[in-house]
């Protein structure tokens, strides 16, 4: 089980860059070893940026928490 705090801490590392770009990443839920986030801002609407952020953040979460499984982003194909 990964904790909400741990996931949030990883997200918080890159949030300043997203916020400065008029976007954000919001942690919606943590269930078991997976989490659901919502990306907002210009990058959320760009397919390639969305994928880059999704994959990159998921990789960072797994590096931090070896048990972490899946990062979900609702409403986007990924």
């Amino acid at each position, binding site marked *: 089980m990964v904790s909400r705090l741990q996931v949030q801490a990883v997200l*918080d590392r*890159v949030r300043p*860059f997203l916020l400065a770009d008029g976007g954000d990443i919001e942690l919606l839920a943590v269930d078991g070893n997976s989490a659901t986030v919502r990306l907002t801002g*210009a990058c959320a609407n760009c397919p390639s*940026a969305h994928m880059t952020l999704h994959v990159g953040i998921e990789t960072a979460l797994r590096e931090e928490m070896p048990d972490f499984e899946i990062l979900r982003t609702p409403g986007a194909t990924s």
Partner: protein
Amino acid sequence: MTVPESSTMDTLVVGRSARMRAVFEFLRVIGNSESTVLITGESGTGKEVTATLIHEQSRRRHRPFVAVSCALFSETLIESELFGHERGAFTGAIKDRPGRFEMADGGTIFLDDIDDVPLAMQVKLLRVLQNRTIERLGGVRPVPVNVRVIVGTKRDLKQLVADGAFREDLYYRLNVLPVTLPPLRERPEDINDLMDHFLSRYFRRRGEAVPAISESVKEAFKRYSWPGNVRELENACERMAQTCTCGTIRVGCVAASILFKAAAAAPVLTVPLSATPLPAMTPEPPGGVPAISLDERLRELESTLISWALKMSNGNKSKAAALLGVKRSTLGDRINRCGIAAPA
């Protein structure tokens, strides 16, 4: 600043930092020289670009420029590669083949990764540099060559000499005109120019307008340490140029690994000397240059660094204090003095 104007702009080294300006100045001074150049620089700092530049502004510019990486060949292959061989010199040598030195005749040879040349081969190189003649493998007569030699190394040759891995006599032969290329992390002020340079190259190639770059991306690029130097930055720019769909380069175009590493790095502290004065500053300074308040600036600096440490330690003050190398109690005092609220 991009110097010198005469050369092909696309292959140039870019930089306005004092370190790069000194390099350009040195290259300009040695422009007409025929002496051996030793270029030292980490991987990706632009050794080959620099060598090309030296060749392009020399009198040999209309003659060949031959670049060889000495790390590419095994100990036995490198000799035939550099000096060539005669027919029958070894199994498979079915015809005469000139080496790179002969191919570069009249021009410049760039021997990169000279630090990877085995000791036995170093003796032969030394002889070539001294006598300006080569002998093909299996050949009997020396062939005179007129070649300007430039060598590149990632490692400090002087240190290798001290360790006994590099011949001292060869080192002195090579180290006539030393050029040291600084790693990108030591010249963060050049990062913006380099981004502009590479991005405009990719977009112009596609015949498109160069998009704006968001401040957030600039900040991330400035903070990232670029272990692969300019080459890594070039690749990052190519990636951004390929993936950007919205007309502005934003954080989503940047590899997340760069963002995470940039986030972990301490903020780059640049003092904007030319920036508009803050309200707290004296309005009418003598001499027209806006005065700044040192105390005010130092407080800003302190507060930036403390906020960073608190963010890195998720608000844990003991960890933040350890990060900053101060006592927990000292940090508490300073937080109060700067009026920073601990992150929620």
